[in-house]
């Protein structure tokens, strides 16, 4: 496999005018990008806004993407620049006031310690997390090991094959079946009552 073939196949489609292909890239990298941006802004909602902006910038700049680097590396750089710009442009401490430094510091710690999600995100996030955890706990050990090595340790199929002493094809199958089992439960969270699109207004 050539590295990055997955992303590149989607990128090429987008470059040829297929907007739907970009959705797939966003879906794949949105969590990573938000987490990255949160290094620069503490506020998760603001981080989401900045990540959103980064994705849109990436979309517009895609014609210039030549594949010199991996797509995610390129996207990552755009996100960092966007985050930095956002921080610089919105930083407006009133300089004539002597700010109470200790208040500032404690606020900083508080945000880092706490999981400041929106109530709605909190509801769904908690439910998602517990659903996934429960599903993983219920997996046969070989499936569980495979998916955890892949998602948590980021090992390639070859590396996992070596770790689990089995063929690469088996790794691929185990990861797929693990995802299927988890997704069966997750689908209910997303599609059962909670996921129905809602008419606003």
């Amino acid at each position, binding site marked *: 496999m050539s590295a990055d073939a997955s992303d590149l196949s989607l990128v090429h489609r987008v470059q040829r005018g297929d907007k739907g292909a970009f959705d797939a890239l966003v879906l794949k990298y949105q969590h990573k990008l938000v987490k990255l941006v949160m290094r620069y802004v503490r*506020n*998760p*909602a*603001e981080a989401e806004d900045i990540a959103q902006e980064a994705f849109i910038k990436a979309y517009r700049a895609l014609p210039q993407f030549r594949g010199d680097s991996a797509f995610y590396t390129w996207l990552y750089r755009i996100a960092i620049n966007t985050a930095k710009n956002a921080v610089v*442009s*919105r930083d*407006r*401490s*009133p*300089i*004539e*006031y*002597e*700010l*109470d430094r200790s*208040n*500032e510091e*404690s*606020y900083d710690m*508080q945000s880092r310690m*706490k*999981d*400041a*999600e*929106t*109530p*709605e995100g*909190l*509801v769904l996030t*908690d439910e998602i997390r517990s659903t996934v955890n429960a599903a993983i706990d219920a997996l046969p050990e070989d499936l569980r090991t495979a998916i955890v090595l892949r998602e948590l340790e980021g090992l390639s199929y070859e590396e996992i094959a070596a770790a689990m002493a089995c063929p690469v094809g088996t790794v691929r199958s185990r990861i797929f079946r693990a995802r299927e089992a988890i997704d069966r439960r997750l689908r209910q969270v997303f599609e059962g*009552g*909670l996921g*129905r699109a*809602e008419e*606003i*207004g």
Partner: protein
Amino acid sequence: MSRPTFRNEHFAALALAWTATGVAPAEEQAPTHWLERMNQALTTRNYDGTFSHWHGGHVEMLRIIHRVQDGTVSERLASLDGSGREFVRTGASLSCYLPDKRTVVVEQRPPEKSLVGFPAVTDQTASFYDIREIGRTRLNRRDTHIITVSPKDEYRYGYRLWIDDSTAMPLKTQLCDTHGHVIEQIVFASLTLPSRIPDSAFRTEVSTEGFQWLRNETPPPPAQAGGAMAWSAMRLPPGFKMTGRSAQTLPGSTDPVDHLVFTDGLASVSVFVEPQRAAKAGESPVAETAEVGSSSAFSTVVDGHKITAVGEVPPDTVRFIATQVKAHGK
């Protein structure tokens, strides 16, 4: 009343479950997060809306237009019936049009001063207020979160906020006393968030012919403010800290004024210290106590200086703070 959506019921059930088992850390920060988002929305978004303001049995409609463009804030707040008063802020200039007094009060602030800093909710704040989300509701077909901020003592007021899920704008706001009784209420009747607002939207409609214009002089260097003395509060109500001071001149006067700011993270009180001067002819001195809506003001004279405290807190709190402000000779 239409049946609540599944999502609202589900969330409500979860919210009640959390409450029943004691508040898990995960729930406590969510409401604070909404307050942050709301403050962000109010200070960084463009919006144009009309709202009703209720206080003391009196309701009036106002229009607010707010724009942030190239780092500059413009806003205009106009009374739609009754007084015809308007407040306009463009860049460095703050103007109050008071047709009832045939006066315009203009304050010029240096560019840095035109940027607003407001108190940040801290760990400390949470120990003086109980901040929680008590539910969600549709407020005229908009999904809103109901956030309550309940003061734990009599020194401060509380809020009930209906925060729009999508924009984090506070569609309805109630200011409450420590018993939970509503003292002041603001409800949006219409609201748009345009991406562009023309400069013309910020021009006042008040005809100022024959009006008296009160402007301020350039502020003196900080060393001169309040004389050679530094002013500070001897004691403060629990949770309040001084977070800043600046020197400025107020419109209509050449006296330098020391502006001290105290806050508990949510409520703030400004204390103005100026040399006591004789009242000009035709102008009533600021009363010993005054109310502007739910905000309170109190002034007293100490050592030849007039000390005025103003804040969105109960009258006793401004009185407390004003009477605690003393000078330290240098």
